[in-house]
Every structure is written in C-alpha cells, then in structure tokens.
C-alpha cells in the first residue's frame, strides 16, 4: 500500500501542470497550453449556463470506435475533463448533451431516435467525427444513413477522423458559447 501511495505522489498531478512536448514541428493546436485555456473558458460557460455541471451521454451510432477512443481520452489525467464541470453519464435521462459518433447505421437508427426522445429538454446534440458530421468514409448506403443530422437534429459537428481530445473540448466550448 505504501508503495502505491509512493507511486501516486511520485507521479504527481499531471493535470494542472501539463508538460510541454519538447519536439519541434508539432502544430500549435497540439501543444498543451490550449487545453488549459479552452478548458478554463469552457468552465466559465458551464458554470454560468449549467450551474457548474454539464452532463453528456455518448452514443455510438455506428462508428469504427476511433472517436470513442478519443472521447475516452478526455477522461485521462492529462485532460481530466471533469474539472471543467463536464461529465459523462450512463443514461440519456441524465444528460444535457448527446455526443453522437459514426455514420448512423440503419440498424442503429431506431435506437438513436429513441435515445434522443429519452433525453429531457432542453437538449443539444453534438455530432462527433467526420462520419458523424458528413458520413465520412462510409457515406450513405443500404446499411448507413450517413451523417447524424440525417436522423436527429444536430446543433454542432466536430469534424476529424477522429477529432483529438482538444478538438472535442473546443467543440464543447463553441456549443456552450452559443447558448
């Protein structure tokens, strides 16, 4: 047990003091500073509009799972999205925002509509990833409805294949900023 605490103390708090990557040639959006800035700006809006707590229900409506991996990354110690008042919930009944990924497969069409119906008003929908935004690599086919907006109303699309955690944070901020 002492060893475990030792490891925790040695690891320290990575969240607040984000280490800079020493490598040159990385784009400005991938540097660490914006996470803090975007996050803080987001927190201000979440505090004001959502009384400090924005609940997101994530729905995979047919994605390849790439977007899910990056949405998960929002919860790791570097991004720790909960500190900005944003948290992921288990039921659409608890959610303010639906974060939908994938081209909507036809087999998920009904489930997505029902999830949307089960989310209490006021509610917002973010379509995540190129597939969610416009159908991406899959488009519309006998098995796919394409973009999320073809199935339920979408308030904001965050493109990228998959979008980085930072892009997701910026998306959340721009949605909240509009409210």
């Amino acid at each position, binding site marked *: 047990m002492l*060893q*475990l605490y030792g*490891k*925790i103390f040695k*690891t320290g708090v*990575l969240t607040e003091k984000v280490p800079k*990557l020493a*490598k040159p*040639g*990385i784009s400005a959006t*991938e540097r660490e500073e914006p996470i803090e800035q975007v996050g803080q700006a987001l927190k201000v809006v979440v505090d004001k509009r959502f009384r400090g707590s924005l609940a997101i229900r*994530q*729905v*995979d*409506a*047919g*994605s*390849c*799972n*790439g*977007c*899910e*991996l*990056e*949405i*998960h*990354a929002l*919860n*790791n*110690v*570097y991004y720790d999205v909960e500190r900005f008042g944003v948290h*992921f919930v*288990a*039921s*659409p009944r608890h959610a303010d925002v639906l974060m939908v990924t*994938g*081209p909507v*497969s*036809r*087999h*998920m*069409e*009904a*489930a997505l509509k*029902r*999830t949307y119906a089960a989310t209490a008003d006021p509610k917002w929908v973010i379509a995540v990833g190129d597939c969610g935004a416009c159908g*991406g*690599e*899959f*488009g*519309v*086919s*006998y*098995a*796919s*409805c394409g973009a999320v907006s073809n199935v339920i109303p979408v308030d904001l699309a965050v493109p990228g*294949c*998959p979008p*980085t955690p930072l892009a997701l944070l910026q998306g959340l901020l721009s949605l909240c900023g509009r409210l």
Partner: protein
Amino acid sequence: MSVESLTSLRLKLAAQDIDNRSSVPCALPPATVLQIDARDWGKAAETAKSEHWRWAGVWADDRGFDLTVNACLEHRGTYLILRTTLAPERASLPSHAPYYWAADRPERHIQDLFGVRFEDHPDPRRWIRHRAWDEGVHPLRKEFPAAGSNAEETPPDRDYPFLKAQGASVYEIPVGPVHAGIIEPGHFRFQAVGETVLHLEERLGYVHKGIEKIAEGRDPDGLARLAGRVSGDTTVGHAWAACMAMERAAGIEIPLRAAYLRGILAERERVINHLWDLGALCNDVGFAFGYYQFGRLREQWLRENQVHFGHRLLMDRIVPGGARVDITPATAKAMHRSITALRVELDELLTLLDANSSLEDRFLNAGILSTELAAALGALGFVGRASGQTFDTRRDAPYPPYDRLKVSVPTESQGDVSSRFWVRYKELRAGLRLLGDLLEGMPEGERVARWQVPAEGAEGFAAIEGWRGEILCFVRFGSDNAIRRYWPRDPSVINWPALEKLILGNIVPDFPVCNKSVNGSYSGHDL
C-alpha cells in the same frame, strides 16, 4: 510452415473420394487453394477437423457468372483455402458448423448477405440481418446496388428469437444496444438466477454499415483508407492486411524498409491498446489507480504518435506499396528513450499490481475459458493465449519484417480474467522488445514501391497478426485497378462466441470485466 500436414490432409481427402484439385499456379500464395465439389464441402471440413486443422474464416464472392465460397483453414502455419463454386440461382452448401463451432455465425453472415443456404446448420436464425434490408434480398450480390432501396425509416429489430430459459426464479436481463458507457453498441440477453448467469446470448450487427459492399469499385488507396476504419483501434492491422492482400494480387514486393516501418506502427498499436486495456480492466473492478496510471502512459504514446507520425491513432499511415511515414535517426533515438522509460514504469507498476489483493480477488477465477473450449473455437490473440493457444501469425506464418526477428509468444493456461490481464502485460513487454529490435535493424532504402495495376480478376490473400490476433483479408480486382471484392476478418469474429461460454456460472456484476477481458470489436465484427 509444414508441407506434411497439407500432404496428409490431401491424402485423407483422396481416400474418401473427395476431389481436391489445387490450382496451378497458386491463386492465393502463400495459401494453397483446393477446389472442392459442393457436395463434399461438409465432408472436407470433417476430415480437416480430424487432422486438427483450425477453422479461420469463410467468405463468398459473387463473380457475376458464378458464386464461390471459400473457407480458410490453418495448421502449423500453413494456410489452406477450400473453394467451391455454386450456381447463383440455387446456392446451397453443406455447413461447416456441425464440425467447427467457429463457423456458425460467419456462415449465417453469408446466408444473410449472399443468400447461400447452409444445409445441416445447427442454427438457422438470421444473424447480421436486422431490418435494414428486406428478407430475400442479399446486399452482397452484385446486382444489389450499394445505395440500396431503403424505406424512409429502418424499423427496430424486435422479433429476434432469443433462447428463453424457464423455471422458478429465472429472470431475463436485456442490455443494449445503447450501453451505459462510452462503448460500441450491441445487445446482450442474460438469463439469470439470483446473481448467477445461466445463459448469455449476444445479438450483434448494430454497427453493420456495409463495408464489404462500399469497398467495391474503390482504388487501392481508397481501400486502404476504408480498411483503416474497419475497427478504429486496429487501423494499422487492417490497413496492413488489406495492403498486403492487394500487393500480392498485383505482384508487388514492398521494400524491406517499408516492412520495418509497418512493423513499428503495428507494434506501437499493440503497445498502446494493451496499455488501454490494462487500465480499463483495472477500472472495471474499481481500481482507479491502475486506470489512471495506464491511461497516463497511453496518452504519452499517443502524443508521440502525433509528433512522429502525424496522427494519434496512426490512421492512413500504411499505403499500398509501403508506408506513408519514415523514421529519421533522431526519431529512432527518441523512440528508444520512450521504450526505456515505459519499461521502467511497467516494472514499477508490476509490483504494485501484483501486491494488490483486491485486484486478484476480482480477476482470479473470473470468466474461465478452458483450454479445451479455446482450442475447439480456435480462439485468437490474447484470448486464445490466456487459454493455452500458442498460435501467432508473426511467429508461425511469418511475413516481413517478422521473418527476420525473434517473436516471443507468451501464454497462460488458466483462461480466467487474470490470465488475460497478464498475457496482455507480457505481450506489451514483448512488443517493446520487438520495437527495439525493429528500430535497431531498420534497413536503408525506399519506403514505397511503385504501384502496378493488377490484371483483371487478380486475387490476393493476407494473414497478419493485429493486436487482437490474426487478421485475414481477401481482395479481388476487377478491371481498371478497381476492387471487386474485399473481405476482412477481424479476430473478434472468432472470439465473440467465447464470451458467451466464459461468462456462464459467473455473477452478472462480473460481466463488464469479463467482457473487457475479451474486448471484441463490434465494428470489426458487424462490418
């Protein structure tokens, strides 16, 4: 590779009067193709089973004038493809499922998408077909348009005939397709008494988005992009398999440097996914420390991917003919440093995890997949290796660059969640060693070979070891460099049924950790 096992099987087949002509020149090297008469299809599988061949996959191909069905078998690193030809209008074939458990759902997949009837199949229910297209309509037939002819709205699939358990105190728990976490959709139907699971039935197919159909007509670059999205966490694995199959069809040798670059990308993918799974398994039993530590290490490697290769998950880094990215000496040095750093971290975490009795309490003896069941199913990757199955494509049917490297394949024999956890840990360590060797031995040279348009009808087959296990791929070209058939087989297709067995007798609350320990891809299964 063992030629003897193939000779022995062919003698056995001949002894039973089963005609088995091999095509010369070989149609799908290095696999051998045997043409089997449709009426002998079942008997051929029975014979192969008695000779201990592993059943690896089945695909159909509508060539316009006829329909072929191909079953892939493997024995000691030798791949064998049984091929039979059917008339499209009355396509019917003896099933392999009575002999091979793993053939059950893949055959139903073909039944739904091609309209091939499998005689003597133990389970006639539909599988991948919900309601997106009409019964009696088969989307993978060539005359079916990729756009389909869909109704305004796809009705929900309400009438799937699940198996029902009856009796005092037996109750049913339906879960999904929308789950309570950030996870892909699928449906699980539990029959339980108290907390104990009596029966679990999976209902997948929710993320079926027609990948096999929309691949048709794409050029090689387009197919590589699509293959990279068969399963988001295996983007390197599937893109590599698709590119290798296309390169074999076109008769292209990729430069050795390209093979090494692909190896580095694939091993990085393995390391990153294992880190994620180790963390997620800790999280599923409430051990937040492990979740955060492994998540931290994973994020560091994802950021390195962005720096070195321009993409966190490495999508579109493998292209037909080679690799899109290169490694400079400075990059190699930086990667060596991060390998060393990760080793130190893992050493430290090893003692902490090992000493944690609460972790042991939840992992040990949970979700046991016996060695016998794993062998019967032909379980792949860490699921198979945690239950004593040693097959690894990189070692047993090696391809460049692994034919020049020593690949160690760790196994465990207990088959529980703990075994699957520790096999992942050991594979992660082995992956780091391989990465070091790949960086050391990287030859100079080009990173892409010039593409040559393959002849019309050219076919290619590939088997590579993705992070979940063996990935198979088949492609056939039409004229003008366009794909006419693309068949990828994710290891999840084989491993999903294992979950139904290993959960039996466990308590319902242990399902999440048992599920995570198998970690099947939904997208890679549903396609």
